[in-house]
């Protein structure tokens, strides 16, 4: 049996949907930091989004299963540092989020994130495209989202938090 290639692993992982927002894949989400094949073992560096996200275990289970499907064994290293950011969500991923009604995250700011920025109206409604929106709640139905309201189309929407 020929060894599995890194590209095959990336392709397989890009088929795993995010358990909470299935329109985007784990690769789109940017949580796969690195893939290396060493002596037939597939080593995956995985960076969780939110530390308490209940989907983290499902994601790891799915990764093991996908690699097993390629006839190899996975070793997943969970990297808990500041290296995952919503900036790692791919441009395709951001577009898929928007189409599904989730406003993609704003880029990380150089300085400290301030409430006044979030209360401002620089955030675009994913439904009508207006920036006449306001912050309703910093927190939402999952850890990664806030709730905003669009004054133009009078629709509440979910805004990805910038991390």
């Amino acid at each position, binding site marked *: 049996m020929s060894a599995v290639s890194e590209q095959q692993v990336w392709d397989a992982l890009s088929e795993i949907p995010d358990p909470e927002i299935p329109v985007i894949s784990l690769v789109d989400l940017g949580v796969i930091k690195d893939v290396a094949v060493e002596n037939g073992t597939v080593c995956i560096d995985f960076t969780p989004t939110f530390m308490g996200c209940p989907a983290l275990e499902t994601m790891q289970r799915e990764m093991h299963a996908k690699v097993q499907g390629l006839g190899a064994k996975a070793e997943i290293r969970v990297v808990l540092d500041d290296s995952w950011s919503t900036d790692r969500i791919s441009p395709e991923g951001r577009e898929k989020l928007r189409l599904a009604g989730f406003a993609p995250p704003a880029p990380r700011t150089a300085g400290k994130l301030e409430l006044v920025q979030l209360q401002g109206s620089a955030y675009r409604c994913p439904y009508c495209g207006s920036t006449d929106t306001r912050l309703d709640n*910093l927190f939402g139905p999952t850890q990664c989202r806030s709730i905003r309201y669009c004054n133009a189309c009078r629709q509440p929407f979910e805004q990805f938090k910038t*991390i």
Partner: protein
Amino acid sequence: MSKRTDLLLSIADDELILGWRNSEWTGIAPFLEEDVAFSSIAQNEIGHARALYELAAAELGTTADELAFDRKPEEYRCAPLVELRRLEWARTIARHWLYETADEIRLAELKASDDPEIAGIAAKMDREETYHRMHAEMWVDRLLSTGDGRSRLNEAVDELWPYALGVLDDELRPELRRRAEERLGRELPEIEAVPRGAHEVELAELWEEMTMVRRSAPKGAQW
């Protein structure tokens, strides 16, 4: 136990117990937005606790679950501030704000740690805690904007102040005092801190509830 493990457990216990207390608002907060907010904050804090327990568990040769649930109440290292059960809004906000302010000071130290695992985890926690701080500050603004709100907040802060000091080590306390006094525009009492390890009676009650399922099925349950 190493100094490192002791530190990890202290912070993990703070986050677990406060997460539990925050979750007590789930379903009964004064309005829906706050129900969602405190539930989400609780989930974040318990996630931080899990990551910190895992680091400690690797050193102690145990598991995060065993550290979270299989110790006796007196073995927890949390600060008494997080143990208090105060299902009253002004006290909830005062505790939230005092804890997040103290935690920001503590996290800044940890982010600068020579230990890459601790520095990394602190930096990641801090990204999430930013939202908790914004939420707490928003509430402080709101309460300070009316006479009634201001007096309720001040009364709650006075009650909790010695507990808030106890979250931090001696050398970090002056910074907490500086920030809190500046924000409230008044001096806070010179008072002795309620130290870590001096548990409140409420912790034993919380522990009974928190560990009940685990104790009823020590070998694990299939759902």
